[in-house]
């Protein structure tokens, strides 16, 4: 029972991070039908930028809270610019190209960003500076850290704000309208380029936030970390129904829980043959099962509430 509750908490934390990243995939897909495979690399750039900024500010004697805030702001702004630039440079010229072309371009952009990060930050693991107090709590036999609490609360607040943005503002309405019928949204005066840019910029801001969270949680980062994280978040988006906001959130949390519980019990399930480091197989089993039996995901209808 202790393991169960403990893994629920761990899964919730990891799932919140997946959800934030999955939202970036799903927003872009919802509006323009593109799977932006470079999105995981935006997360990675966010983590590494935060490490550099926070690390140097801490070294200069700034208090951790301020250094953390500065890292958050710089990483978020940089990632927003990166997402905006990706769309402008790599995807916009391919707006009317066959669907495979932008997809391959996305993979190319992901490789370019990885290599760029390798040049800038090197091949070695980077350690995330100690920004948060190392406090542990215990509740009903379950242990959790301050970082875990912050991750879950901040993700929840962010997802709530995004939902309000999409469902309660004019920009959000224009985004949904564009996702549903771009030509008619244009007739209403919506500049689809702006809406698409907004989707990339907002998604990248969420990616930066997620990047800082993973960094603070695992305390290490690496130029290749975006690949696996991106793939899992994409899985979460597909699980929830790609293009569907609520689906990305639910899919992320659910995937985090499946992985954590899987990792907690995989030893028992396989009679000790596989250890918890095999937890990655769960995400991809989920992906395969969803694609085989319910490709539209949990929340996706045939048409899906895109964006």
């Amino acid at each position, binding site marked *: 029972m202790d393991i169960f509750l403990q893994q629920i908490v761990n899964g919730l934390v990891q799932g919140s991070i997946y959800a934030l990243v999955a939202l970036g995939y799903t927003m872009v897909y919802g509006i323009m039908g593109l799977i932006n495979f470079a999105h995981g690399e935006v997360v990675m750039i966010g983590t590494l930028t935060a490490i550099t900024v926070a690390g140097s500010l801490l070294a200069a004697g700034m208090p951790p809270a301020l250094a953390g805030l500065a890292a958050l702001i710089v990483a978020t702004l940089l990632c927003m610019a990166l997402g905006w630039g990706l769309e402008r440079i790599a995807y916009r010229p391919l707006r009317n190209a066959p669907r495979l072309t932008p997809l391959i371009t996305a993979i190319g952009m992901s490789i370019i960003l990885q290599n760029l990060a390798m040049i800038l930050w090197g091949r070695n693991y980077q350690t995330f500076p100690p920004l948060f107090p190392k406090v542990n709590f215990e509740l009903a036999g379950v242990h959790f850290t301050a970082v875990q609490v912050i991750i879950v609360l901040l993700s929840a607040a962010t997802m709530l704000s995004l939902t309000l943005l999409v469902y309660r503002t*004019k920009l959000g*309405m224009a985004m949904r309208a564009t996702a549903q*019928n771009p030509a008619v949204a244009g007739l209403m005066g919506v500049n689809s380029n702006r809406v698409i840019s907004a989707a990339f910029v907002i998604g990248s801001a969420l990616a930066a936030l997620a990047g800082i969270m993973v960094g603070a949680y695992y305390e290490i980062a690496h130029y290749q970390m975006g690949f696996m994280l991106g793939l899992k978040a994409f899985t979460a988006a597909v699980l929830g129904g790609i293009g569907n906001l609520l689906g990305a959130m639910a899919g992320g949390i659910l995937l985090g829980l499946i992985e954590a519980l899987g990792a907690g019990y995989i030893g028992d399930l396989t009679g000790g043959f596989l250890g918890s480091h095999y937890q990655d197989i769960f995400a991809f089993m989920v992906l395969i099962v969803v694609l085989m039996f319910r490709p539209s995901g949990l929340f996706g209808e045939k048409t899906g509430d895109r964006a």
Partner: protein
Amino acid sequence: MLEVTGLHVAYGGIQAVRSITFHVKQGETVALVGANGAGKTSTLKAISRIVPATGDVHFCGEKMLQIPPHDLIRKGIALVPEGRGVFPRLTVAENLAMGAFIRDDKAEIARDVERMYAYFPRLKERETQLAGTLSGGEQQMLALGRALMSRPKLLLLDEPSMGLAPIMVQKIFEVVRAVAAEGMTILLIEQNAKLALEVSQRAYVMESGEITLTGNSAELLHDPKVKAAYLGE
């Protein structure tokens, strides 16, 4: 107000509109009638910059074929597209709000929404319902209301009667007439030639991408050629 000169639309090798010339004056309701595939929708799509076209379209003295499509409504042209084009997963209220996307005057927008609900009480009843769940007739009401929400100078209507029960057609056209009576300039496309000729002052008849006949609607209604070809008499 609207002057179309030598408008030409081609889809690959298919010449859908062949160099047509026509105009709409301020305050007029002009009909463009013709059989299936005559090129009516293509003409409207060209004017609204949805499909590429050559030739000239002047609106209030300004060249229209050069401006980006999303600026058309800012110039005062609103289209009710063929097949209605409502946003299926936005509510009725949100669809109307989308019609007022370019406007910022909240109080006036709210007043216009009430005006649309007065035109179409059915929409008021369905206010919070997703537009995709509406009947075809209700969607047509919504598409018309949405277009009016931008307070356009020129209203382009593409077959508002298509696929609707006679009672619905009657309701829609009551509003079209009312809007026209208030001074709106309208370019109406219809396969239902009788209806179109009754509502409009002038009309153009289109056949295989060309305008073959034009005149006062009242006279065209009694034109033997029109009667034979379009009125089934």
